[in-house]
């Protein structure tokens, strides 16, 4: 009897496409398949099957042979043209040599004769899933090995538990030691060679470098080490568990001294002025992130609501970057026409001010006009939202109502930003004003009358943007908390709606 539990465990994260023209059989199979696979797609003929394959890229395709529009063998041929790795299983009432031959040519993973016996289906699925898992592990390992040896500046240490068991030649040369034993005799632990530097990885009281690295596998860290000639070198450190053997791990140290990035991390040298060298530094850091298969974070705003998701760098071009990210983030980027990037290895947020291309199908986005941000919305301490158009505000200077047009640009618990067509005569920074706002909570108008201080103004060609800081009387803040919270809920709903459009 097949081990159903094992199949379900092994198939975690895999999806399957079931192509069959008989509706009853399709429904029956679907009920069975969802027991093992997280996602099951179906199609009623080869044509729809191919369409769904292109759309969803399932790892496994189960197909009938005889179907209208496009038969199962044609479908296999088409899929094979698109993907060499997809596992195809053919189900057929036929047992002829020609079909078998065409199947073999298309590297079909298995045949099932119809009517399909559940046990044989489960057994075959287990075989196919095993193959996928095996291939993935091998690929992961080979990529890892390839990554390590492709970059000659990488030093590597392999560990079993916490004990170093192997280092590469680059490592030995760097420290001028004959072997690992020699290194341990001289330094005891790798942590002892990491030097103190702001924001870098090094041992501190109650902070153990290895604990930090091993509990944050794949996260990138900076560190500074002296080589045998007593020169400071700058490294990116990464910890990875080996996929093939539990308990084994690898620490890799990627020498990036030549990128001259150390000064970017020195807070005393507030260096965000030299645009050209900064842009070079950013692109170099992108390359470091890419070759270490690390992620970065993309941040966007929708009417003040922050949308953040991980992204992986696919390509670093001459003046742009291609990032794979989520559909949700792509929608937010499409709305804002720009994005902000952050990563643990990049000392400041990075602005990408222009979209080159958004590929919703490939889940990738290409961004350009890239530069460091001295100040970004990410540093905001309060939630600042763009209100609905209906919100009204009036300013009073002493007893006198300001007669110009007032539009609320955004509002937070601390302040309000207003756009004015005229600037009130005599208003100076630090002056006290009164502001009347008619908020809308649960679709009802809620008036609020607040004291505020004029904080700053920005002048545009035909308008002024001013910021007023609130001074609350008791209970007034609570009304504003209620308003901002309910506005936030509305914006979340609106943004979710945007995903469907």
């Amino acid at each position, binding site marked *: 009897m097949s081990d159903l539990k094992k199949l379900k465990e092994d198939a975690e994260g895999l999806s399957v496409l079931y192509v069959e023209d008989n509706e009853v059989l399709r429904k029956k199979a679907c009920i069975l398949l969802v027991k093992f696979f997280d996602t099951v797609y179906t199609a009623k003929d080869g044509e729809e099957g191919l369409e769904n394959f292109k759309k969803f890229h399932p790892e496994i395709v189960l197909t009938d042979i005889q179907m209208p529009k496009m038969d199962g063998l044609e479908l296999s041929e088409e899929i094979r043209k698109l993907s060499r790795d997809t596992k195809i299983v053919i189900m057929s009432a036929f047992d002829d040599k020609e079909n078998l031959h065409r199947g073999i040519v298309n590297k079909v993973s298995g045949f099932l004769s119809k009517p399909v016996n559940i046990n044989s289906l489960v057994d075959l699925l287990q075989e196919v899933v095993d193959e996928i898992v095996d291939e993935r592990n091998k690929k992961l390992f080979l990529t890892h090995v390839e990554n390590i040896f492709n970059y000659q500046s990488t030093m590597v240490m392999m560990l079993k538990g916490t004990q170093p068991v192997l280092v590469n030649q680059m490592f030995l040369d760097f420290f001028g030691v004959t072997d690992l034993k020699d290194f341990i005799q001289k330094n005891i632990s790798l942590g002892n060679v990491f030097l103190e530097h702001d924001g870098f990885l090094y041992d501190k009281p109650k902070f153990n470098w290895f604990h930090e690295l091993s509990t944050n596998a794949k996260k990138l860290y900076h560190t500074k080490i002296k080589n045998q000639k007593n020169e400071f070198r700058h490294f990116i450190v990464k910890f990875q568990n080996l996929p093939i053997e539990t308990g084994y791990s690898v620490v890799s140290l990627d020498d990036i001294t030549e990128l001259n990035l150390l000064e970017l991390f020195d807070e005393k040298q507030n260096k965000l002025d030299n645009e050209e060298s900064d842009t070079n530094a950013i692109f170099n850091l992108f390359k470091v992130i890419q070759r270490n298969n690390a992620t970065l974070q993309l941040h966007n705003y929708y009417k003040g*609501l922050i949308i953040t*998701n991980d992204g992986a760098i696919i390509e670093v071009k001459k003046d742009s970057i291609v990032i794979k990210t989520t559909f949700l983030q792509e929608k937010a980027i499409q709305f804002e026409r720009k994005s902000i990037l952050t990563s643990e290895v990049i000392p400041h947020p990075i602005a990408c001010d222009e979209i080159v291309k958004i590929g919703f199908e490939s889940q990738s986005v290409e961004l350009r006009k890239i530069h460091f941000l001295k100040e970004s919305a990410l540093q905001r301490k309060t*939630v600042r939202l763009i209100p609905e158009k209906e919100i009204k505000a009036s300013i009073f200077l002493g007893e006198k109502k300001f007669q110009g047009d007032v539009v609320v640009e955004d509002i937070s*618990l601390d302040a309000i930003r207003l756009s004015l067509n005229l600037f009130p005569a005599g208003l100076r920074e630090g002056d006290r004003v009164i502001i009347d706002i008619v908020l809308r909570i649960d679709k009802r108008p809620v008036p609020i009358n607040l004291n505020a201080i004029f904080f700053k103004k920005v002048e545009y060609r035909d308008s002024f943007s001013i910021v007023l800081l609130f001074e609350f009387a008791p209970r007034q803040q*609570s009304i504003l*908390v209620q308003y901002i*919270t309910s506005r*936030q809920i509305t914006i979340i709903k609106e943004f*979710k709606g945007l995903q469907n459009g």
Partner: protein
Amino acid sequence: MVNNEKILYDDGIHKCIMFGFDDETHEDSFLSVNQYLIIQNEHAILIDPGSVGIFDDLYEAISNHIAIENIKFIFFSHQDPDVSGSIAHWSVSTNAKFIISSIWIRFMSHYGFADTTRIMALEDHGAKLKFGNDYLRFLPAHFLHSPGNFSVYDSRSKIVFSGDIGAAIVPSPESYKHVENFDQHVVFLEAFHKRYMSSNKLCRAWSAQIAKLDVDIIAPQHGLIFEKEDVKLFLDWIKEFQCGSDYMEELY
């Protein structure tokens, strides 16, 4: 409880306060709700702040102890509305980071909160957080009752904030909300735990984990707290308690 609050621990530097604000709409259900605040010097962590209905009162009560901007962390043991329903309100009125099981993050948008940069997601095995000179441990309490559920251990006050574990359906007492007679209290514990907790196997695992710690108080999110010898009595009781799937035949 006088003034809806009680100091559970105070050594001059480190303080734990228990609040007891009930959502008025549920007052007749006798499921009294507790919120907790730990303060060390200028830093505070708020534990299970509850629903929107009590936000204003809790906000004001906390302000009497520490400036709201000093709340650095807000911990939600799980996703229920009486625990984390007010997340959006707290996100607007503090700069705090929110600590919750990673499996509930996506659901927080239903409470009007979507800023994932402010969330410290807890993976299943929990985490240890440095807090002032001491630490807080987030201990797995999954399926008791929520699938992504944590208790918190404060190493300095030796209090376990146990979320729904240890909760009891009792009228909110006028005075100090603590168990006075464990044997009499068991009947109130049973009613809640039998239906809300998922199995004895999980109760046993949680109890064994807590028994290894040096604990003076177990402070649940509903009902009364367990002190001194009642801590051991409670751990022994829950270790043997049959609940949830142990009564499958009654449920299906």
